[in-house]
């Protein structure tokens, strides 16, 4: 079949979200992506795979989002010289994904592309590639010196501030290289990959059932989003239909995750502008919710609840009532706190016009998630591709245009209220019945897509199976797209505002380091 937006042959992919697979010759990859870009398709993910044990060479995969759905484009690459034309000139967000692909698989873009390493530091030698099937996952290579060519900034009065990987606060490790004049930031360059712990390689040693637990630990703060995306991919690949009640419960869990993360960050955003009152208030609210999660679902962060085939635990009506009552308290309290934040001159002075990402830049760089919605990009998978359970509850798309810290703060408040409304509606419309279906047996080679609007942005899981096991699985975090925007957001700001700007995005290191 053909999509109305794309002039190549596509195959519909079974699963909950509208998705299609298409093949393209590597030589035509640029052209197809250019064409897609002109039709306002956005880049969701880029990854590679080793197909040598399937009698082929390598493959490059590109996931593009069209209004009709997700197109998973695969370009077969040569076994001895796996090269392809890079697409970072069309989609700037592809830059780091291409470099990760080169580090893990030795699949390289043609000359002209950024050839610097990304995920490889010193843990494995140059010229060996962990995601190749002949690479021994347990091999321990001697640490090598990690020399990374940062872009130097010169000029009178310019100096560098290196920060990390171990940071001053309780956050994940990464390196930030600031070039500053006085207090003003001229340039920020990120170096990530410190948390690379071989997640994709580990998936390839797992069965479809085993992978669920690992998927829930790609980025702990988005465990529901990942577990759901994983389950959706497995269900698509195996042709399993999760019960309607399970979908409703997944929606409730995902919105609870969104609320908890927004509450925590709103607290820290207060803390970062010398309003510790905000921290204590929001973390009090968050803690009450986490405790209720533990009581109702058995886990404070809802880990391992979404499983392939459904959910691991049902909720009784009386328990759901408790949840709604607690959420009503949260809603009332957050409304009070919103008024306090809004009217606090000191806080607003720090929030407004700080760390601004204008809509034009956000669009060009491919910003996703709530940060994109704060920069005028009206996109949300729950709204754009309404499938159950969101279809029945009609989520409201929330967006702002100013793209500064204040917009991201304001958007998080609004999303908390909307998520509470969605949970109320989902509880009201929770269908009766079972919460888990047995997993159907997959064919010898199957593929599936999971695509979920997590609290931070869209989480993609692309899965290919071989004889019931995982052949290749790429979990894609929205942070891949959003990290580069942070480098832009801090331009012209002062160094002390960096923690505030960073927290307003709150990106995942683990999710993108894999």
């Amino acid at each position, binding site marked *: 079949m053909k999509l109305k937006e794309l002039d190549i042959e596509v195959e519909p992919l079974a699963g909950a979200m509208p998705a299609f697979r298409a093949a393209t010759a590597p030589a035509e990859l640029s052209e197809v992506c250019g064409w897609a870009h002109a039709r306002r398709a956005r880049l969701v993910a880029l990854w590679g795979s080793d197909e040598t044990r399937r009698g082929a060479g390598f493959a490059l995969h590109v996931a593009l989002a069209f209004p009709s759905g997700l197109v998973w484009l695969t370009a077969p690459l040569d076994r001895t010289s796996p090269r392809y034309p890079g697409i970072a000139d069309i989609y700037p967000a592809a830059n780091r994904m291409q470099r990760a692909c080169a580090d893990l698989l030795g699949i390289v873009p043609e000359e002209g592309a950024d050839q610097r390493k990304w995920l490889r*530091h*010193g*843990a*494995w030698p140059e010229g060996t590639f*962990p995601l190749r099937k002949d*690479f*021994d*996952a*347990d*091999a*321990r*290579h001697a*640490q090598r010196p990690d020399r990374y060519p940062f872009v130097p900034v010169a000029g009178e009065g310019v100096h560098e501030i290196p920060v990390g*990987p*171990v940071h*001053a*606060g*309780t*956050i*994940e*490790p990464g390196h930030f290289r600031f070039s500053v004049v006085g207090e003003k930031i001229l340039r920020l360059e990120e170096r990530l*990959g*410190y*948390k*690379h*712990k*071989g*997640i994709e*390689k*580990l998936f390839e040693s797992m069965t479809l059932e085993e992978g669920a*637990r*690992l998927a829930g*630990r*790609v*980025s*702990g*703060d988005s*465990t529901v989003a990942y577990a759901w995306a994983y389950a959706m991919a497995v269900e698509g690949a195996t042709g399993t239909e999760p019960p309607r009640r399970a979908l409703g419960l997944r929606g409730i869990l995902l919105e609870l995750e969104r609320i908890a993360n927004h509450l*925590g960050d709103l607290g*820290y955003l207060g803390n970062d502008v010398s309003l510790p*009152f905000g921290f*204590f*208030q929001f*973390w*009090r609210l*968050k*803690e009450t919710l*986490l405790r209720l999660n533990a009581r109702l679902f058995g886990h*404070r*962060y809802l*880990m391992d609840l979404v499983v392939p085939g459904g959910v691991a635990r049902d909720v009784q009506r009386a328990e759901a009532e408790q949840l709604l009552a607690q959420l009503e308290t949260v809603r009332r309290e957050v409304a*009070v*706190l919103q*008024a*306090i934040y809004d*009217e606090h001159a000191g806080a607003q002075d720090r929030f407004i016009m700080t760390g601004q990402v204008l809509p034009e830049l956000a669009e060009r760089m491919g910003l996703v998630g709530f940060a994109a919605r704060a920069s005028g990009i009206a996109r949300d998978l729950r709204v754009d591709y309404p499938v159950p359970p969101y279809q029945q509850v009609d989520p409201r798309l929330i967006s702002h245009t100013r793209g500064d810290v204040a917009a991201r703060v304001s958007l998080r408040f609004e999303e908390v209220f909307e998520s509470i409304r969605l949970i109320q509606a989902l509880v009201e419309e929770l269908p009766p019945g079972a919460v888990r279906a047995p997993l159907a047996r997959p064919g010898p080679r199957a593929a599936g897509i999971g695509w979920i609007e997590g609290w931070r942005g869209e989480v993609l899981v692309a899965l290919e199976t071989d004889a019931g096991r995982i052949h290749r699985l790429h979990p894609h975090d929205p942070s891949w797209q959003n990290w580069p925007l942070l480098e832009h957001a801090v331009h012209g700001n002062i160094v002390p505002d960096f923690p505030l700007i960073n927290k307003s995005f709150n990106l*995942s*290191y*683990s999710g993108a*380091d894999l």
Partner: protein
Amino acid sequence: MYQILKQIARSGIVTEPAPQPDEALRASAQRLGEAILGHFGRALAIRHVDAGSCNGCELEIHAMNSPFTNPEQLGIKFVASPRHADLLLVTGPVSRNMETALRRTWDATPDPKLVVAIGDCGCTGGIFGESYASCGRVSNVIPVDVAVPGCPPTPEAILQGILTALSGKGR
């Protein structure tokens, strides 16, 4: 300002009593003596190091700083530099890419020092285990005094682990 005060008064004090130390958490071979612990006095400065976690344990370390557990009531506070720290709170399986940074952080922490490993991954390597990219448990890289299991461990369990590390014999 009135609204802030009103909200504070309405919220009241939610802080709960601190947990008791748990001897079972102690990594027995690495007890610190009374003499060393004596150096710390009452206050404790903690440096958190994420050595490769999924960030789940970080959520609970943040939650430990919530008003419910409020470690500052016990004189426990988080500091920005290992050079100011008495205790390192380490999460994650140690990724190979963080191995050097963790060693350097440990080296930068003045003696006497304590190390508490947090979470199943910190205790055993967890689901990530040992591989080309992961060194596994924290004690594979630096000496550990107390290891707190859980995925992630609750704020109470983390605080209990810290107090266990502190409560050497004779303290």
